[in-house]
């Protein structure tokens, strides 16, 4: 068991209790029905509608963004140092307790 904590756009906190290793953070949030998460392109690095800010304590636990993701993040007006596309973040149980914040709409 591993859990993911999501800060929503309305400032609420949602706790996803059972992380799914192998799935992405975007898919876990989508399956849980996190409000305002559009994830329109379904994880194909085409839209940036699953942009999150990763808890700095966990930021280096993921492989760095590939160029395409980097460019998409760069195009956001809400980029922060730990910005990621959540569709590119694969879950594993050692991420237990990870906190992400859904970035504002662009």
């Amino acid at each position, binding site marked *: 068991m591993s859990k993911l904590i999501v800060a929503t756009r309305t400032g609420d906190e949602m706790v996803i209790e059972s992380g799914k290793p192998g799935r992405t953070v975007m898919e876990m949030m*989508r*399956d849980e029905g996190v409000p305002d998460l559009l994830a*329109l392109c379904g994880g*194909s690095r085409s839209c940036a509608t699953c942009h999150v800010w990763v808890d700095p304590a966990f930021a280096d636990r993921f492989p760095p963004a590939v160029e*395409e993701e980097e460019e*998409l993040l*760069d195009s*956001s007006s809400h980029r922060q140092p730990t910005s990621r596309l959540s569709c590119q973040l694969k879950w594993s149980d050692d991420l237990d307790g990870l906190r992400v914040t859904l970035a504002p709409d662009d």
Partner: protein
Amino acid sequence: MAQPTVVIIGAGQAGFQVAVSLRELHYDGRIVVIGDEPHAPYQRPPLSKIYLLGECTDEQLLLRPATYYAQHGIDLITGKRAVAIDRSRRKVALEDDSVIDYDHLVLAMGARNRPLPVPGADLPNVCFLRTMDEAAALKARLSHTKSAVVIGAGFIGLEFAASARKQGIDVTVLDVADRPMARALSKTMSAVFMREHEKLGIKLRFKTQVMHLLGGPEGVSAVETVDGQVLPADLVVIGIGVIPNVDLAATCDLAVENGIVVDEFLQTSDPYISAVGDIAAHPNPYAPGARVRLESIQNASDQARCVAARIMGQQPAAYDALPWFWSTQGPLKLQMAGMPAADCEEVFRGEPGGSVCSVFLFRGDKLVCVETLNRPAEHMLARKLIAQRIPVTPQQVADLKFDLKSLLPKPPAAA
């Protein structure tokens, strides 16, 4: 008094998003979603790509887990068609004779495949690619396929062609037009795609039409064109566009043209009925003068959210979202921002001969559309340039050394 009810006909991206947005906006009435496919709402874009290639499960296609709907008080009815709308009494009848009352009805029936009206089109191994079931059938065929003929060089046809090619299948694409994606894409970008698809080993034949499909009970064996070419094929995929599902709306006398006619608030000629997504013929600020019907995820999602907000009693806002679109064809990631338009000045930005480039379309001095290939960041930038009407010139666009990002207003200092 009975609980207020919103009924949504259509469980595709648009119908799904209306239901989800209503719940996210804390609608406390009943929500009923009626879909004629046997599946919970799912994403169509992956069907022609990762799903076909076996890189994505049925479960991963779902927009929400099947359990989500009951948990959120959404009555999801799958595998059933709505057959009649009684506008005066505000009721919808389903094919199983059940009847559902509504306070507001949202039509999101989308579109169906345009059939190919030639002999042999009903042979086994002649396929379409729009639904999950069609994609599953195609996927099962692919491993036995040596050569495929794709009829229609539009988005779906070329997405399929690239996926099939990746599996080593010999692929030929036919179209009556003189270039790929002729209805939607600039001549300049069309030419880039022609070259890049040929590099992938896909054979493209334009200005030709299918006369008939040859074969027998065991399946299709070849495609014969009007100019007498016979192309062997053990699989044929038809991708010649879609027909909006307006029959139900026409039967109950709603205004219908090429789609269900709606106003800028996406309301039909009946104030208790809205229409969203592929089916909605709507006025669009990016296409002045004409009602348009857009077949895209963006349009489905944004229109759905617009209608959900109006149903919730928010000050009605005219639908004015910038159209954008993507089509991934093997290694070619095409994205479009703005409304495709004919008779524009086409300005190329990129290294000639490369597979990373853009085409900016100007009407007069106004930027109206940007097509990018393998440049997602420039696509995002283009969306801002067009939507915020930021002045940009063809000279700036053509100059690769010019940083287009410098045109954007400076972001406010970080909080």
